[in-house]
């Protein structure tokens, strides 16, 4: 039976940061996973900036962090879909988000996290919308007319119709995957699987590529059973934490925040451009970025 059984082999889904990011074109809707100060696919985010992407509709996490702020600061974004952009105690509001929204440089698709997941779910379910009750009587439908009040067809109750949030490419970061896209997160997974389910393609950067045998040892842990592509990226969430691998680099986050806040307060982009120059444009690969950060700093982050 050798004539039929050995012709084709299972294809590896591992690809480079640049090849994964090449699936994103100007004007697309891009989902970015993680949660505030954790789990963002930063090697892929930086690649979008390097590639000069423009007019992206960015679907951040239900609570987005400064990875979305950075994309805004770099001029990649035309619209943000997220119920929150900030960094908790480090920054209540993302500075570039705040400035760009105030000045009309970006649109904000204003919604609550429940609306956010209702919209993602509609995309995953291939529906034009999903209903939600919370939000009636608020200003959401006024400031975001895409959230439309309607009467439900069964009881005539007033509800909001949340349109599907359809994502072209989702970019996530996780703990491990095998070569075939079986991804396993540590911890609660935040909203990553909902972003994946709403997306046409999903690229996941991981701390480690592992054997399929290791995946099979605990299939309950498989959070995504078949990502489009897997990117090898140890420290791939830096400066944010990767659950179970390293904590956030608050010093580096502070460096970005200082630069972005200077732009917000003074209109002067010098510090911000210098940040982008140092950590993106003159460090165009993930390893060059990590070199720029320095191994000494990275080694301080390994606790919990």
């Amino acid at each position: 039976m050798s004539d039929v059984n050995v012709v084709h082999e299972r294809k590896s889904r591992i690809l480079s940061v640049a090849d994964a990011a090449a699936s994103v074109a100007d004007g697309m809707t891009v989902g970015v996973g993680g949660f505030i100060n954790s789990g963002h696919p930063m090697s892929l985010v930086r690649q979008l900036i390097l590639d000069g992407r423009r007019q992206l509709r960015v679907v951040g996490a239900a609570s987005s962090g400064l990875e979305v702020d950075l994309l805004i600061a770099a001029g990649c974004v035309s619209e943000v879909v997220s119920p929150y952009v900030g960094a908790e105690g480090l920054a209540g509001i993302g500075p570039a988000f705040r400035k760009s929204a105030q000045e009309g440089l970006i649109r904000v698709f204003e919604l609550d996290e429940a609306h956010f997941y209702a919209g993602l779910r509609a995309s995953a379910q291939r529906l034009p919308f999903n209903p939600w009750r919370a939000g009636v009587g608020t200003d959401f439908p006024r400031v975001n007319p895409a959230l439309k009040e309607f009467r439900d067809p069964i009881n005539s109750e007033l509800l909001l119709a949340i349109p599907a949030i359809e994502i072209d490419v989702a970019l996530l970061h996780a703990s491990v995957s095998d070569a075939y896209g079986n991804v396993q997160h540590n911890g609660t997974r935040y909203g990553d699987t909902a972003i994946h389910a709403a997306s046409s393609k999903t690229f996941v950067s991981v701390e480690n590529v592992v054997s399929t045998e290791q995946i099979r040892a605990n299939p309950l842990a498989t959070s995504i059973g078949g990502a489009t592509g897997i990117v090898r990226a140890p420290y791939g969430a830096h400066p944010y934490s990767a659950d179970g691998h390293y904590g956030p680099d608050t010093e580096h986050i502070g460096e970005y925040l200082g630069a972005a806040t200077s732009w917000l307060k003074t209109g002067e982009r010098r510090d911000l451009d210098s940040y982008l120059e140092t950590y993106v444009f003159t460090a165009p690969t993930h390893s060059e970025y990590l070199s720029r950060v320095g191994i000494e700093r990275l080694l301080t982050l390994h606790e919990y």
Partner: protein
Amino acid sequence: MQTTVETDFGAETDVAAPHEIMAAAIAHGLLDGQWVEVGANLPVPRAGALLAHLTHGPNMTVMIAMTKAYLRDEPVIDEFEFITDVRAMRWAEAYYQHDQLLNNQRHRANGVFFCGGLQIDAYGNSNLIGIGDDYRKLRFRGPGAIGTCNATVQVGTWHLVTMSHDPRTLVERVDYVSALGYGRGERDLRESLGLQNPGPTSILTPLCIFDFDENTRRARLKSRHAGVEVDEIVQRTGFEFAIPDSVPITDGPTRAELTLLRTRIDAGGALR
């Protein structure tokens, strides 16, 4: 194309049984990279999916007993009586929690589905609800649609399949449409309803394969299995169907495929 093959390894006989021909026909229609369910207690679609996986489908996503599996390294693949058989879990790369699977339909567009029915009609509609004019007093209450109504909308490709080629099953019009094929042949019906795939590709039976006329959307004979005469198909079918001037023989298993079926996929002989 030769459908009865001679072989001296693994098979009790060198002639492919009707169910083996069905399995091979299913396998030949599947593409590498597709997502396919391997149901329990549905030996023919199961064998067809696994045959495709072992021959030309290393990148197929095989769903078996609610787990995601890669089975090309298994010397002999167990047949399960129940979809809840936990023996499948040892192969699992992921679990499909059932309610979450039903929440995640967008990625199912790459899927292929095999839809059964108490009745299957000339326009590819299926009925698992029951038989009888009065829904409140069915002569025969069916088991329910399971997920056939939804799966036949969400997957990219689907087929009807029955093990009972007889006039009670293959009818002119189903009593109740629980999975929509082409309705009554209305033009662009599925498109106008917003259904994402173009409709059923074929009806697979132990005697033959029907496909659907591009204009009328009625079933028409596409091929007959080796050893089956057209007359028998006509007599055992409850609807009228077009018959081409020359009816080809169904593309059954090659010698190597038959060996794979009998030694690794269907070692228990459920298809014979």
